[in-house]
């Protein structure tokens, strides 16, 4: 599991994250929600080991600070909000960069075809030969997810669970691909891995998250199952917006919920 105790992060003297307690368990999708600027991404960066923090982060029973980048990379993969590429790599070459650490977990001979399998998973079959920079924003986001999946292809390695850190994984995706990506995340958890995802869509969060962490001004405002956390009061407090949970629109205004998807 991943456990964070009393984690604080200050950037340029300004405290962005203050005393957050957090835990992500194998088999579960943990969603971090909160308004813009509430410290979600900063907290995930601390959890990834790329940002200095105070407090304790324990990854699979080891202190994160005592682990080398190459060791951390075996236990978790990170999908950032946006990735810019500086040279004209093909899609396949980008996805293959996920294998740099060399612990995808598949049998030695299977690594060669892994980029194609990962691309198929994110519904990008046949994109391998395209140039990354020519793709649309949503397609690029899915290429990056394919790369991240290659890094931790098997959710469990050497008996230890591995984790996917996803920072707004569906932010530029259409509804079909939002569902595909969230299903991949849930499937990764069902097979023994763990997922930590920053999400903005509360309906998707309610549908896919096992546990919600709501952040507000750098602090943890609430934590628990979607049923417990997504209440009128909490949403008003955290998002500063008066909304009511479970209310249908009046009259015949159409509305579409991801939960209505038929597979």
């Amino acid at each position, binding site marked *: 599991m991943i456990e964070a105790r009393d984690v604080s992060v200050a950037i340029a003297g300004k405290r962005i994250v203050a005393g957050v307690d957090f835990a992500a368990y194998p088999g579960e999708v943990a969603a971090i929600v909160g308004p813009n600027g509430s410290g979600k991404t900063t907290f995930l960066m601390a959890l990834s080991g*790329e940002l200095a923090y105070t407090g304790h982060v324990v990854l699979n029973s080891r202190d994160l600070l005592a682990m080398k980048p*190459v060791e951390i*990379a075996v236990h978790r993969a990170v999908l950032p909000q946006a990735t810019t590429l500086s040279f004209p*790599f*093909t899609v*396949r*070459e980008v996805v293959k*960069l996920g294998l*740099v650490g060399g612990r995808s977990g598949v049998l030695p001979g299977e690594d060669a075809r892994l980029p194609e399998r990962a691309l198929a998973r994110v519904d990008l079959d046949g994109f391998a030969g395209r140039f990354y920079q020519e793709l649309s924003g949503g397609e690029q986001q899915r290429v990056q997810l394919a790369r991240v999946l290659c890094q931790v292809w098997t959710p469990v390695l050497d008996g230890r669970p591995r984790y996917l850190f996803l920072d707004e994984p569906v932010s530029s995706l259409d509804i079909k691909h939002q569902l595909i990506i969230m299903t991949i995340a849930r499937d990764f958890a069902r097979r023994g891995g763990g997922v930590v995802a920053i999400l903005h869509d509360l309906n998707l969060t309610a549908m896919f998250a096992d546990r919600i962490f709501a952040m507000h001004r750098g602090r943890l405002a609430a934590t628990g199952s979607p049923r417990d956390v997504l209440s009128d009061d909490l949403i008003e407090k955290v998002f500063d917006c008066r909304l009511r949970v479970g209310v249908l629109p009046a009259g015949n205004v159409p509305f579409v919920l991801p939960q209505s998807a038929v597979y």
Partner: protein
Amino acid sequence: MVDQSIAGPVKGLAGASEGDRSGRARIVILLLCLGLVIAVLLSLTSGASDASAVNVISVRLFGIVPDDAVLSARDSLIVYDIRLPRIILGMLVGAALAVSGAVMQGLFRNPLADPGLIGVSAGSSLGAVAIIVLGATVLAPLTAWLGTLALPLAAFCGGLATTLLLYQVATRRGQTSVATMLLAGIALAALAMALTGILIFTADDRQLRDLTFWQLGSLGGATWTKIASVGPIIVLALAAMPFLARGLNALALGEATAGHLGISVQRLKYTAIIGVSAAVGASVAVSGGIGFVGIVVPHLLRLLIGPDNRYLLPASALLGASLLLLADAVARTVVAPAELPIGIVTAITGAPFFLWILLRKRGVVDL
């Protein structure tokens, strides 16, 4: 940033996966090896003198004694003590400059980064000129202690100081701003050149002539002694660079993502900077300012085999070595029996090429 000519799906070789250019890269590297052999033979046989390399080689290797023994001794001298060291030095310098360019571009995540462009070469020059001008006076203890290593070491330190300074100025919180890098490079180069100018101002006539030719860039002074002093530095630096390839590939996704993939980014950056400074410093020390090899060679190769550094770095070394040999062959023969500084040849072909890159990228690339 995508070149129009290479847009569209990339087909691999027969049997390879689509988008996988590694097979093509291997073939290109094989062809480049062949090209280098041809360039070496061409350089060995061409020059102001009519010395026959074929004769010399047949004497040395196969013990065939030619009809005219006197002529043979002269030829042997020209081929063995003039052309051969010059060829070896040319290969070392060409490879060092091209690979340094590729590594810098990977490090700064920009295809326009080049040791000559961003002041690294100017810093190396400053170190080298300091030794040339002050070596007999102020720095005499240093030159006495280090001997022939003084010049390359001073050039290395100058290049290293410039690169480190540049990196500190241009990098904020793990992101390197390319605009800042180019501007800081211009400022650092100007500063280094001004300091070099002061040194030149104090130089005597004989030193002045040496300096002028050295600054224009030339492989003319190649001797076995020079190779012995800078060769090991360049070979070591070149040997270390392939270990950076995977890290540089990951770095194309950004420093944070490279870290997520398990790369020790800080160590990668410092190894790259020290390697580049050593290679460029050693090259500048022996051959002066030879420009544009570091930018033209990797760019051409990226069009051919893609940006994967595992292939780009060795291919750059091979093509850089071949191109410099050809440029030197041109420099030696075009105004024979006089000799053009090779820096003029590379600049006169490289600068228009550089402009052409900029034109093609106009509107698509943001600096």
